[in-house]
């Protein structure tokens, strides 16, 4: 415990919240890998268990009371998620397994139906592989061309690249991350949306690293597609959301075919269900959706503004100490322009070795390329170590991280 631990002044008591997460009741565990996946609080775990124990049946089929309760639980989860993200309607909220699936859905449906050879999709150099590979596959299928927004040495998007691409008049879609999972950069998405819309291009945002940390109001943002993973925001793995503007979703062909997504089925042709069922073929992952809804309620209870203030405090506290460590380089913008993930390297020590030494002290961080190989290549790096913070982390956790890094230095030498 350091003297500075009590000086945090936020309206969120992380030490109390931490006790609501069963895994984190182990006082030796310092979990600093929430950017990969967050831990789960009791209210989410309880609601999922209650669903399986008390309300379980298949949805949208039975007329018996139990099946109706199950359907109602699923529908309520969608209302909770829609409310959390400020979607205009539950019809615009499609449940998917994760952000990756949401992006693939748009590429496979909107992309296949709309893109012609020579049409341009603009991405950035800081994208997660999940916002690169589906578009590479789409380009191979359709002849569309991928163009990129570069990244400055400070870890910011070069918006002049976006302007240059838009000026060609060939851009149909801009798909970038709201927050970078490696740099922590919070991108100027309002500005990107305004510039793209002015030129008639749609905008998709990968919100995987934004949704857990900042309040997202989709209707106010005016974005066309928004993709989210529930498991990074206290919800279960296997839960996620694709938000799409209603008129876009209505015009898009379905994704997977099967039960639940149809209106009338004949032997040779069928018609599609209304939104959002059109994009949800087969028995859905109801318990995961219910847990996702509960996670949204949980975060609303804490208050996303409080989450943001708390994380800013931790990032500032960590950033200052990290930069004081000898031969440590941290990447991305300073605390004012970033979210709660900090990637760094130590001269002469591979990130895996940093992570292994920290693990011996109970501190969990990520090491590797964080599914951003092109970004690492852009920065001239093979791999980095990454510490990421969430509602349950405290300044003591940061102190444990810094102590661990000093130990790394002492083992590997200056």
């Amino acid at each position: 415990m350091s003297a500075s631990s009590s000086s945090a002044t936020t309206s969120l008591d992380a030490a109390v919240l931490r006790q609501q997460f069963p895994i984190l009741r182990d006082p030796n565990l310092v979990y600093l890998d929430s950017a990969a996946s967050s831990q789960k609080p009791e209210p989410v775990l309880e609601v999922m268990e209650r669903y399986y124990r008390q309300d379980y049946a298949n949805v949208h089929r039975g007329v018996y009371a139990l099946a109706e309760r199950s359907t109602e639980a699923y529908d309520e989860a969608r209302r909770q998620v829609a409310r959390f993200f400020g979607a205009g309607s539950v019809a615009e909220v499609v449940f998917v397994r994760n952000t990756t699936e949401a992006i693939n859905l748009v590429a496979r449906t909107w992309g296949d139906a709309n893109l012609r050879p020579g049409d341009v999709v603009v991405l950035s150099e800081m994208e997660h592989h999940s916002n690169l590979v589906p578009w590479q596959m789409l380009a191979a299928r359709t002849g569309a061309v991928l163009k990129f927004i570069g990244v400055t040495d400070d870890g910011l998007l070069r918006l002049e690249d976006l302007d240059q691409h838009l000026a060609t008049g060939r851009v149909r879609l801009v798909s970038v991350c709201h927050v970078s999972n490696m740099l922590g950069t919070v991108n100027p998405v309002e500005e990107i949306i305004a510039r793209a819309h002015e030129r008639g291009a749609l905008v998709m945002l990968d919100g995987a690293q934004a949704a857990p940390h900042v309040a997202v109001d989709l209707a106010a943002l005016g974005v066309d597609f928004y993709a989210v993973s529930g498991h990074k925001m206290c919800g279960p793995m296997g839960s996620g959301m694709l938000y799409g503007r209603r008129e876009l979703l209505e015009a898009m062909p379905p994704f997977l075919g099967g039960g639940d997504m149809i209106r009338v089925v004949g032997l040779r042709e069928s018609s599609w269900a209304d939104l959002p069922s059109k994009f949800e073929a087969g028995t859905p992952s109801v318990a995961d959706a219910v847990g996702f809804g509960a996670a949204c309620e949980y975060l609303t209870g804490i208050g996303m503004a409080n989450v943001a203030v708390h994380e800013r405090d931790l990032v500032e506290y960590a950033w200052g100490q990290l930069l004081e460590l000898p031969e440590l380089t941290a990447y991305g913008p300073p605390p004012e322009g970033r979210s709660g993930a900090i990637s760094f390297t130590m001269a002469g020590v591979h990130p895996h070795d940093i992570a292994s030494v920290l693990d011996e002290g109970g501190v969990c961080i990520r090491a590797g390329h964080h599914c951003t190989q092109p970004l690492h290549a852009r920065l001239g790096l093979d791999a980095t170590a990454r510490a990421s913070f969430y509602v349950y982390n405290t300044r003591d956790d940061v102190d444990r991280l810094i102590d661990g890094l000093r130990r790394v230095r002492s083992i590997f030498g200056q």
Partner: protein
Amino acid sequence: MSDLYREHILDHYRNPRNHGTLDPNDATFEDTNPLCGDRIRVDLRLDGDTIAEIRFSGRGCAISQAATSMLTEMVAGKTIEDVKAISKDDLLEEIGIPLSPARVKCALLGLKVLKASAYGFHGWPGEE
């Protein structure tokens, strides 16, 4: 001190044995660990069926580099058939530290490359 980063591991990491490349060589192979991007290349020069010289190069963590350094000492002067007979347990025993499953992959990357080089074809010739 660390359970993992004992002095002999750090010594091999800081002062890798048989480090470098051989040009010309009789066999060379390179592979990467996609998990972390570690890359190891092994070059061999043979005297008949016997390894006359061995060098390794590449980038990676202390475990992968130290393990490969130790491996080159194990096989110097051995025959290609001896190399084919080396099991992963032989190498893990030589390394002598407790490794988690993820780190075992780091430790075995050099052996994978050496075996591919010895067999003269791509790919791990069998996990035994």
